[in-house]
């Protein structure tokens, strides 16, 4: 249960994991390069594998952020997909503005769906999104603000456990319903798609794909180091203590609300960043990203990998998504059974996830 198990684990395991991680990052980093090799070459990496692993890297960042909230602060958020989607929408708004007059209707400013819906001018909340810097700021600020308000309301009145989980789920559900509406000014059912370029790069080129891939990989490493730093400091220790005995920490004089709030907001921002990196790679964002099922799936990644360990979250995101990609093409009917079965198996038999398995072997 405690997060310190990994730190206290035999150093052989820690060294092994660290070596494995560095190896994995190097291997991933080589993907776009190997993609350039001729297709007949033994080491050639297909376009599909590059794009799908680019997606998984974004999922891994989401898993990391969820692990920070759930594994370390004990906040089981069933609505982290909402932060991910909000980051994605902020990025999508920037990409929509960059389409400019190249849309189907050729309007110099308004995106196609707005012309179609009869908008005369850009709604105020779309202003500024033509600037990359502003959009990136929003990618972090919008999910962060939502987490701040929701977290402040909940943590202040000491809503914890399943109540908090249900409220976060209701939040993402409400956002999904809201974003499905056409008159919200976010493209309704269809969301945003048909992006053209980002930072002057046309998106449909190999160079753009490689750039986004590396940006995601670098973000993953940075987020990992950030989480590691946060959890290893005194702040992280207090956070873990709150997870294990909230009232006791409160009686010791710590401001529980503020500690949790900081972790929750940081986590939401990270999830927003993951969404922003995800959208240009898959080329679309729609309200389906808010569906409660997505958030729950992210919880499974963390649970399978091993919550309370950062490596576990990343490992879980890659392994569950790898399994999903393979199964949904090999035996599509089976995937939901496997996903459901993973929930059951992990909670009953593998409370520490895959990392727990490794630890067991290491001892």
């Amino acid at each position, binding site marked *: 249960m405690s997060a310190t198990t990994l730190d206290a684990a035999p150093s052989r395991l820690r060294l092994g994991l660290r070596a494995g991680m560095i190896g994995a990052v190097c291997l991933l980093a080589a993907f776009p390069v190997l993609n350039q090799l001729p297709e007949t070459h033994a080491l050639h990496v297909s376009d599909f594998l590059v794009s799908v692993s680019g997606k998984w890297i974004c999922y891994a960042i989401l898993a990391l952020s969820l692990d920070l909230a759930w594994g370390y602060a004990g906040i*089981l958020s069933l609505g982290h997909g909402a932060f991910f989607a909000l980051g994605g929408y902020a990025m999508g708004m920037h990409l929509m503005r960059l389409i400019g007059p190249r849309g189907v209707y050729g309007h110099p400013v308004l995106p196609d769906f707005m012309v179609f819906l009869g908008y005369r001018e850009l709604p105020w909340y779309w202003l500024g999104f033509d600037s990359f810097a502003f959009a990136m700021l929003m990618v972090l600020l919008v999910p962060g603000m939502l987490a701040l308000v*929701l977290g402040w*309301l909940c943590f*202040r*009145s*000491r*809503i914890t*456990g*399943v*109540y908090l*989980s*249900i*409220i976060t*789920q*209701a*939040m993402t*559900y*409400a956002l999904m*319903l*809201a974003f*499905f*509406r056409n008159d919200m000014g976010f493209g309704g059912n269809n969301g945003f798609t048909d992006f053209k370029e980002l930072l002057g790069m046309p998106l449909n080129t190999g160079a753009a794909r490689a750039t986004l891939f590396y940006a995601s990989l670098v973000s993953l490493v940075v987020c990992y180091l950030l989480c590691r730093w946060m959890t290893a400091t005194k702040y992280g220790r207090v956070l873990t203590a709150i997870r294990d005995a909230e009232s006791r920490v409160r009686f010791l004089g710590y401001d529980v609300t503020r500690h949790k709030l900081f972790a929750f907001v940081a986590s939401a921002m990270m999830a927003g960043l993951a969404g922003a990196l995800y959208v240009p790679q898959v080329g679309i964002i729609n309200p389906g990203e808010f569906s*409660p099922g997505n958030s*729950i799936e992210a*919880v*499974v990644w963390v*649970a399978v990998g091993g919550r309370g360990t950062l490596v576990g979250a990343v490992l879980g995101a890659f392994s569950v998504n790898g399994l999903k990609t393979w199964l949904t093409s090999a035996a599509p*009917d089976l995937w*939901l*059974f496997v*996903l*459901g*079965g*993973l*929930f*059951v198996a*992990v*909670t*009953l038999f593998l*409370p520490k996830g895959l990392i727990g398995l490794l630890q067991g072997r290491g001892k």
Partner: protein
Amino acid sequence: MARLLAILLMLALALPARAQDAFIDALAGLGGGFGAQAEAADRLGTLGDPRAIAPMRALSDGRLLRRADGTLIIRTDGGAIEAATGAPADATGAETVRINNRVRVALRGALGKLQLVSPDAGERLAAAEAVFRSPSAENVPLLDAALARETQPRIRERMELALAASRLVATDAAQKRAGIATLGASSSPEARAILLEARAQNADLLAEIEAAVAAIDRRLAVRRAAETFFQGLSLGSVLLLAALGLAVTFGVMGVINMAHGEFVMLGAYTTFLVQQALRDIPGLAPFALPLSIPAAFLVAGLGGLLMERGLIRHLYGRPLETLLLTFGVGMMIQQAVRLAFGAQNREVTSPPWMQGTLLLPFDIPVTANRLWILLFSLAFFVLIVAAIRFTRFGLEMRAVTQRRPIAAAMGIRTGRVDALTFAFGSGIAGIAGVALSQIDNVSPNLGTGYIIDSFLVVVFGGVGSLAGTLIASFGLGLINKVLEPWAGAVLAKVFVLVAVMVFIQRRPRGLFPQKGRAAEA
């Protein structure tokens, strides 16, 4: 005095006879030259006698024959009848009566008017609507005649409105006043529109018209409010059904079951299966729905029992793990049903007594199944409260949830009570599924739509309080429907979600918090 009565009696007797004479007189004209035919058609149209319909239809279809003696005969599918009396007739030697375009036009007009006295109720209603929409002073005598024969209250009402609207365009001020009064006494938006339109032509009657419009507006506002109220109650009853099972498993036991919606779905599919099984058994088919109730209780209850004994019992005291595990189980149940029955909707038919629309006071249209579900949910609620309060099982259940070690010390087998309570709550979800199959699509993801709402209801009402669940479901249902007209269905829902979240801020333990030690758990 007696003589006067006798005269009145004679007059009364003579009246129908005179009318009959008029009909027969006019009818004879149909057999004459084109000019006489058109004139006869006009006369028959204004007489308002339903017997005129058959001969005139026959004439326009070329099925009206004339014997040498002048008797008109209608050729029917099997033989022929006399036009005046409807008695079987001999058509030999009779020749077809010919018409021209002028007669055809006259016939069409007359038949249109006569629809007001047609033997078919639907035709009469449609004719009354048509006259109401294009009022004309000429229609007044016709409507009077039609009203004298009409017995069905719904059609009478439309005819009276049509009459009033026709009077309003008459020249006589007294007639107009009567028309305005009748229209003003109705609660129909069309009457309101006609009154507003009439303002331009009737500057002298402006005050009366305004008063009548205001009266209609008042009545419409009351009706709209009553309608919203009923819709809110109806939504509340659906929420209550969906949340009741959860109020037992989550509220009373404290076990969070994310597969609750899937038990509701299983109940709906059980209804479908029972209906399929009984379809060909004539004696039992009408009872498919009532029989589905115990069947769904058993299916979902058994599912709950297996789930509690097999999985959940290992996770007591670890709510977050329970949440994830039950979510996974729900996912598997859903996928299993999808594979077994397909992803498309399954058709569950409503029994005849649950079909159709009823009119409640204030003319609120209510679909029968919604009303039944409202009544059913209330009765069901009472039954569950009674079961928990008055049965031995209910007593043991309360004892275990309040103070487990003491209950065990008293000799209650707590494990067994846990299992049965969970099965009970799941079975209730199954019964909710039977009711929801009547108003929702029976598809594998039927349950997902209700799960978040159900949790909100239970949390809002206060965990562990069944009365709170009752009030919360009707409260949320009403709030939702009151907001809907000006916020739209989706925003109303979003607003309710936000409102519940804010409410939990002020009262974290819901509307009816449990008091005492149990609250601290």
